[in-house]
């Protein structure tokens, strides 16, 4: 073991620390991005033409805004957003500071995914709810989010996995985490075993998310 991964053994505590940082960045930003993304995704679905609160102007603005936010490369977003980060967190470097760009990097993506998931909810069921006198908010919570839940869980998995990918880039603003170890130690010092183990841990996280998510989606689906 010591011969195979010599540098990792001596850096065990750093690895534990980095894994916790990655988890913190992923799930810390995921929770807030989920709220923002769900809200934006629902808003897009209900305001789009033919939606229960169809509003051409609102939809067009939201649609363009989502595309705009999605088209900023993450590594640039890290820099561009720093004034906002400073305002919200009080600093522009460190693990907590990275949450701000992570949230803005992922929630527009998530909103689109949620929008697509909700568009798959049978329009006939929505119409049935309207005919039963349901209000727009009742339709959102009792029909769209409930009927769309299995798909929402699936797109959430995809999103969390993308988010894990983004956290590795946040090392550029001193966020720490597994990506940071792999680059600033493994890559910079030619200690390949560090890079390898960091990658492995990331893969394990990805698989764990995938498996738990699939299980959850199956559990709530009644096809």
């Amino acid at each position, binding site marked *: 073991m010591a011969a195979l991964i010599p540098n990792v053994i001596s850096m065990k505590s750093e690895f534990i620390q980095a894994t916790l940082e990655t988890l913190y960045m992923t799930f810390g930003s995921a929770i807030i991005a989920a709220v923002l993304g769900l809200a934006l995704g629902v808003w897009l679905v209900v305001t789009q033409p033919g939606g229960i609160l169809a509003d051409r102007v609102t939809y067009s603005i939201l649609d363009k805004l989502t595309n705009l936010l999605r088209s900023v490369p993450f590594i640039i977003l890290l820099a561009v957003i720093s004034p906002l980060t400073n305002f919200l967190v009080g600093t522009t470097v460190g693990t907590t500071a990275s949450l701000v760009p992570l949230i803005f990097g992922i929630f527009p993506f998530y909103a689109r995914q949620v929008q697509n998931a909700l568009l798959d909810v*049978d329009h*006939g*069921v929505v*119409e*049935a*709810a*309207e*005919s*039963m*006198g*349901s*209000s727009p908010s*009742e339709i959102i919570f*009792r*029909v769209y989010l*409930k*009927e769309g*839940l299995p798909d929402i869980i699936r797109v959430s998995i995809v999103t969390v996995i993308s988010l894990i990918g983004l956290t590795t880039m946040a090392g550029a603003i001193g966020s720490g985490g597994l990506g940071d170890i792999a680059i600033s130690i493994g890559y910079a010092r030619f200690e390949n075993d560090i890079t390898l183990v960091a990658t492995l841990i990331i893969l394990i996280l990805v698989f764990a998310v995938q498996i738990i998510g699939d299980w959850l989606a199956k559990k*709530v689906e*009644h*096809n």
Partner: protein
Amino acid sequence: MTANNIIELKNIDVTFHNGDQTVKAVQAVDLTIEKGDIYGIIGYSGAGKSTLVRVINLLQTPTNGTVTVNGQQLQQLAPAALRQARQKISMIFQHFNLMKSRTVLGNVEYPLLSQKISQAARQQKALQLLKLVGLADYAQTYPARLSGGQKQRVAIARALASDPEVLISDEATSALDPKTTKSILALLKKLNQDLGLTIVLITHEMQVIKSICHNVAVMDAGQIVERGRVAQVFTAPQAPLTVDFVETSTNVKAAIERITNTIDLAGLAANQELMYFNFIGNATKEGIISQYSQQYQLDVNILFANIDQIDGENVGYMIAIITGDLAAFNPAIAKRVADGVKTKIITTENGLEGLA
């Protein structure tokens, strides 16, 4: 408005704009439906039936005209009041539109979620309705496990949960086999009789109208082309489309097609004629034949005959080749018309047209 009219649509237009295309889905339709009626709307695909009934609960806002249900002019209602009114106008659909994330019981409970009643009372009411439609054993099942007929029964139970005055059925039996269709129609009839529920029923099958409706409107290209008591409309159809529905449902259309395809009309002898008879009430096939053969010395060779019951009245359809003295035909035909028998000589030119 008469107190007895539960639905009054006045001068309804619905126009859709698809890009630069304009579709007049409903044009200048007046529709009055009495409380307790079972009112059928029949028409081919694209006639505007769904659009018209979606106007009744304002799921479709009409471009023009007024919608009055249960004495309330719906267009004047605030959103919350309109939602309240909608609870009294239930709807069932061709594809059932059940929520797959909820159990059968959960689906039936859905309309009650926004009412201020306890969970226990809500469940009890839903269970009672499931009993009414014969599905109490399936309360905890998810809709994906049910057959089409069972799904429609759940949809009916759900539709009844809000104690509606009106039930709109948009092709509710179109996805079901004939036997299941029959049982669903029987259930609707029972609800009409037991609860006094007014039913508006859309279909493209005349059989459905004949089996449970009292009144019918025939729709074509956004307009109602004929309407009235079912017996009257289908025994004495006026509009070509109505004739078409009648002849299709009684197989007359298929028979004429088959016969004109197999018999060379031009090749009939000079003293022969292919004739189509339509008779109502007391006139019978045997009566016509015996009268023709005795009084006019005609030979009647029947190629097709069918008797249909519409609202308790017998309606007969017959296609036959008549051989004999041609000079006797005219008085014979004139005589039969006076008896409530309509006849028509089928020629190569008019072979496929109806009797209108």
